[in-house]
C-alpha cells in the first residue's frame, strides 16, 4: 500500500449530525409551503407576501411561479 500522512479528519466522519434535518429526508416535500401533493405548485412557493393575489387568473392556466 502507498504510505500517506496522518489524515486531518477521520475519513468516515459522518456528514450528518443527529437532530439536524436533512435536505433529502422524507417528508420534506410536504413540509415546504406551496408544493402540492400531486407535483404542482402554487405562488406560495415563490412568495409569502399576499401569495393568493398572484395566482393565475383562470383555473385552466398553469401556475408558473417565478424563480
Amino acid at each position, binding site marked *: 500500500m502507498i504510505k500517506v500522512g496522518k489524515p486531518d479528519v477521520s*475519513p468516515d466522519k459522518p456528514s450528518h449530525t443527529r437532530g439536524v434535518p436533512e435536505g*433529502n*429526508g422524507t417528508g420534506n416535500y410536504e413540509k415546504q409551503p406551496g408544493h402540492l401533493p400531486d*407535483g404542482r405548485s402554487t405562488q406560495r412557493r415563490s412568495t409569502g407576501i399576499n401569495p393568493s393575489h398572484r395566482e393565475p387568473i383562470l383555473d385552466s392556466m398553469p*401556475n*408558473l*411561479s417565478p*424563480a
Partner: protein
Amino acid sequence: MKQGTRTRSDMKPTKGGLVEVAFDPITRIVGNLGIYTKIDFANKQVAECRSTSSIFRGYSVFMKGKDPRDAHFITSRICGICGDNHATCSIYAQNMAYGIKPPPLAEWIINLGEAAEYMFDHTLFQDNLVFVDFCERMVAETNPGLLATAKTTEAPRGSLHGFKTIADIMTAFNPFEGSVYKQALEMSRITREMCCLMEGRHVHPSTLYPGGVGTVATPQVFTDYLVRLTRCLDFVKRAVAMNDDIFDFFLEALPGYDQVGRRRTLLGCWSAFQDPNVCDYDYRHMSEWGRAAFVTPGIVVDGRLLTTDLVDINLGMRILLGSSYYDDWVNDETFVRQDPLGNPVDQRHPWNQTTLPHPQKRDLDGGNYSWVMSPRWLHPETGEHLALDTGGGPLARLWATALAGEVDTPYVRSTGHSVQIDLPKTPGMPEVNLEWRPPQYANTIERDRARAYFIAYAAGMALFFAEKALDEVRAGRTKVFTDFEVPEEAIGAGFHEAVRGVLSHHLVIRDHKIANYHPYPPTPWNASPRDSYGTPGPYEDAVQEMPLFEENGPDDFKGIDIMRTVRSFDPCLPCGVHMYVGGGRTIERRHSPMFGEQGA
C-alpha cells in the same frame, strides 16, 4: 518527461532499423498519457506501441467510508471537462441504491444539461484541438504534397459551409487565426451557458442531486436555453458539411488512409439520456429502461450488435491486470456475490474490486508499465475478454443506436441500419436532414467524423427534451425532486456516456456509508495496457502496424498520423511532445494549442 532513445539491436532488423519514438505526455487524463512507439521508417509503419500512464489518483480508495450522498460532488472532480457526466452517472448509481425515481421534469433537465455538454465538449475538442492536426500549417509541415492537392480541390459542400476549396477549410482550422477555430470558441461559450442553465455550474454541477435537481424550472430557463440552442444549430449544420468534406478529401487524396488507426470493430456504448416514462432505476428492470434511453446501449463486435441489455453489459465487465501497477484482489473481500436478479457477480467485476496500488519502476519490455488497469468485456459465447473501445464516444454511440433501431423522436431516429437527424430551419440555415451510416472500418477518420454527427444528434435531442420539459411546466408539474433516506445496505450501478465514451459507477453501501465505489470512465477502456492474456489496449492496437503517410523522414518526423489516431479517441492534445530519434541525438518539439503563437 525525457526518454532516451536508441536503435535497438534486439529488434527485428529492417532496412533502416526500428526507431523508438516517444510521445509523453499526451494530456487529458490529467496530463499523463504516454505513447511509446517503435517506428519502421523503411516500411513506413508503426511496428509496436505501448500506452502508459504515470499518474495514480485513487478515487476508488478514498471514496470508502464517505457519505454516499457526497459521491457525485466528489467524483465530478475526476475530470475537468466532463465532470458533469461523472456527477450524472453517480446520481444514476445512487438513485438505484436509494430506490428512488426522480420526477420527469428533473430527468428532462438532466438530459438537457448533458446534451449541452456533448455539444460543448465535442465542438471544443474537434474544432480547437483535433483540427490543429488537419490545419493548413500542420499539413504544410507534414504533407506538403497533400496541401498542394487541397488547394486545387473544390469543396463539394461549399454551398453549405461557405469554403471554396479544401485548402480554405484547412486555413480556417489554423489555431488563433482561422475562422472555424475562433467561431468554435464562441460556440463552446454558448453551449457552456446552456449547461449552466440546467445544471447550475459547468463543469462541476451544483444543482444535480440523487432524486432530482435543484434547478427552478421556470419557462424562462427553457427559453434561454432554446435561444442559445438555435444559434448553435446554424454552426452545427455548417460543421457537419465541413467535416464530411475534409474527411472525404483525406480518404480520396491519400489512398489507404482508411487503414490509419484502424482496429477490429469492438465498440461499447453504455447509454445516455434516460426516458422518465420508462426508467425507474430498479436493477430488475434495467434491461427495459436501458433500451428506452435516447442513446441506446450496445456492444458492437465486427459490425454486429451483440447486445443492448445493460444487465448483460454489467455482468460481463471484468477488470484485468497484467501490465498495471496493482496487486491482485482475488483473495480480498467479495462485496456483491449476486446481482438483484440472482446472477452471479465475478470477483473481477467493479462491484468486487479492491484497489491495491503497487508503485514500481516502469518496464516497457514485458513488465508493468501503466497505472491504468485493463477493463475488458467477457464475450458470453466465445469466452474472449474483449478490449472494447469507445471510438472516442460518438462512433460507438451512433453505431449501437443505429443498429438497435430503438430511438424514435421527432428530430432523431434510428432506422436499424442508420441514424437520421433532422434539424429544423434556423435563422442562418435551411432545414438539414442528415443520415449517419456505420462505416466500413473503425478508423481514425471515422471516429473524428462521427463526432461531428453526434453534435447534431445531441442538438436534435436537446430540441426534443426542451419541448418535453416545457410540456411539464405548462401542465404545472413543477416538482423536480424526490426525497429519500439513505439505506443501511444497498448496491447501485450507474451507466452513462461521458463525452468520450462509456462511463459506469459501481457503488456498495454498508452502514449508510460507501463500502466500495468504482468509477470506470472511457479512458481506462481506451488507454488500457496489455492485459493478463497479452491483449493490447485499444490505443496500442490501433497504432500498432499502422501505415504512416507523413512525408517527413526520421530527422523531422512529427508523428502526425499517430497523433491523429490517438486524438481520434479523444484523449487530449499533447501540450509537449518530446521525441528522440536515433542514437543519442535528441529532437525536442513542443506542440501546443498556441501553435504558431509561441513558436517551437
